[in-house]
């Protein structure tokens, strides 16, 4: 009995080790694929996703981005209500689609009386795609391009170089579509921003960039009279437009091959050890 146990022990250990390595090899691609904290994945698509209810959105991974009140000198700047937003992005050969979904139980669509303020959402990009401007509306030397949707069914494209400098493009190239939706247990907004990748104008962000692109988000709850600097904002995030894009399948293959090779080596080693042991005993 004792002999049997002794002779089986190395084999058992080798088997466990091999199993562990095979498992880690299988999990490794997933770990390697986990997004860096500030990355918002961008899915490559063939179809148009301008419709916030399009089926194609179900294949696009979402990032949940936390929001906080923007630092601002306007009254009640720290009184904002939108806490987080689910963000999905997709890129076709010609267009970028960004879908934002956030909870806001009251749909405030009017600015038609002195006290009426509308719900709004905005996406901010650096004008110069390779830079990261000051988060609060950029700066004089490093401008930002902002797309602002309002529940009044208007969309503005803005240029800013610091707080209080927002200027409207006369002919916006950004389109939006919005619907009400259910977010968790609340009602909320589901808004898609669409723009051609090619900016085709000065002071507009080129979206056919091949490097990672910084992007930030802002939300206003009209019911809470949020406007201007009284808004819930994200930090800078980025769209991974850089060359790593599309590397995941290759990585998977590499890790699988490496894992199998390691397991094979261990199995062979274990067998050799076992054989050597048997020979020694006999």
């Amino acid at each position: 009995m004792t002999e049997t146990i002794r002779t089986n022990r190395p084999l058992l250990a080798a088997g466990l080790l091999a199993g562990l390595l095979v498992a880690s090899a299988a999990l490794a691609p997933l770990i390697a694929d986990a997004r860096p904290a500030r990355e918002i994945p961008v899915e490559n698509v063939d179809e148009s996703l301008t419709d916030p209810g399009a089926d194609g959105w179900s294949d696009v991974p979402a990032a949940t981005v936390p929001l906080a009140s923007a630092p601002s000198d306007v009254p009640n700047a720290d009184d904002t209500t939108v806490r987080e937003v689910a963000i999905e992005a997709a890129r076709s050969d010609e267009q970028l689609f960004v879908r934002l979904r956030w909870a806001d139980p009251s749909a405030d669509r009017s600015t038609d009386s002195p006290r009426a303020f509308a719900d709004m959402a905005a996406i901010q990009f650096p004008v110069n795609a390779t830079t990261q401007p000051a988060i609060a509306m950029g700066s004089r030397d490093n401008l930002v391009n902002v797309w602002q949707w309002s529940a009044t069914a208007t969309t503005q494209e803005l240029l800013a170089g610091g707080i209080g400098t927002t200027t409207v493009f006369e002919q916006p190239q950004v389109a939006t579509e919005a619907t009400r939706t259910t977010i968790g247990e609340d009602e909320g907004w589901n808004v898609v921003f669409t723009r051609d990748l090619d900016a085709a104008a000065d002071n507009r962000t080129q979206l056919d960039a091949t490097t990672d692109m910084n992007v930030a988000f802002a939300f206003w709850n009209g019911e809470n009279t949020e406007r201007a600097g009284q808004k819930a904002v994200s930090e800078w995030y980025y769209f991974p437009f850089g060359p790593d894009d599309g590397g995941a399948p290759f990585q998977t293959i590499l890790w699988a091959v490496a894992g199998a090779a390691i397991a094979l080596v261990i199995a062979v080693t274990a067998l050799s050890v076992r054989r050597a042991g048997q020979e020694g005993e006999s």
Partner: protein
Amino acid sequence: MAHDNVELADGVDHQVAMVMDLNKCIGCQTCTVACKTLWTEREGTEYMYWNNVETRPGKGYPRDWEQKGGGWTSDEHTDRSVGEIPSQEDYGEPWEFDHEGILKEGKDKTLKPEGGDPEWGPNWDEDQGDGEFPNNYYFYFPRICNHCTHPSCVEACPRKAIYKREEDGVVLVDQDRCRGYRYCVEGCPYKKVYYNAVTKRSEKCVFCYPRIEGEGPDDEVHPPACADQCTTQLRLVGYLDDRDGPIYKLVEQYEVALPLHPEYQTTPNVYYIPPTAPPQHSDDGETVDVERIPRSYLEELFGERVNDALDTIKRERAKVERGGHSELMEILQDKNPAQQYRLEVFGDD
């Protein structure tokens, strides 16, 4: 420059100013209509009265504007009282009337606002006033933007879309910069900035700047329309820092023209000669030596300086009654447009 003891805003060359003699206002609203016809007949401005005449005591326009905050917390002008935006109901809806149907088509119905039963509107409490018969009292109170020396509306705007212009201190909203945030609407303690829900921008009294610049069709300098059209010519228009003008004398020398609610600390440039009413009557109709408009009420509006102002006016009036001469009484009765409207004294300096 002739304004040694006149406080002008930083960066302002001269300061336009207006004095309104409340003793002359008959509440005819000609100023209101003049302003409305000229400036606020556009879409989105229907509810606005850049110039309004309200009955005091009363809730005013917009309703209870004195309870809606705004202005500065001290004369250091560092901290603002944020204030609130009046509701549409506080202003009153721009009602539609079926003049066409009643007057031309002979419809048999009462002329009243169409579609609804309003519960408030401008001058809803007209002539109501306060006090018990036979000593009830009220007076009319014309109001425009005060074009303040320390405008809290300007400070409130995060975009600097509202500004005090250099040449004459007129406070204007740059319609290209304004994004309709309405911080100026809530920040003005006099509630004299209005939101246009059609253009999505805020608007206000422009002191008829094209008129005072002589930019009208006749190339002549004119006073603001509210002053020009006034049936009793109760307004004087000029520059606070024009030491030879009647405004300087009334405000700085005799100190009988006072800003409304000086405690808001915005330093208005529209000034008022406080009203005097006939004395009170006894129940049997005899005149008694008690002022009809309580001083306490006038102090609420103009601060404690109203007492000295009224005493000065009373003293100067008595002087004239005794056959003497009073420069102050001369100014208050002046019917010479060259003195009443001194808008060309500084030229293009």
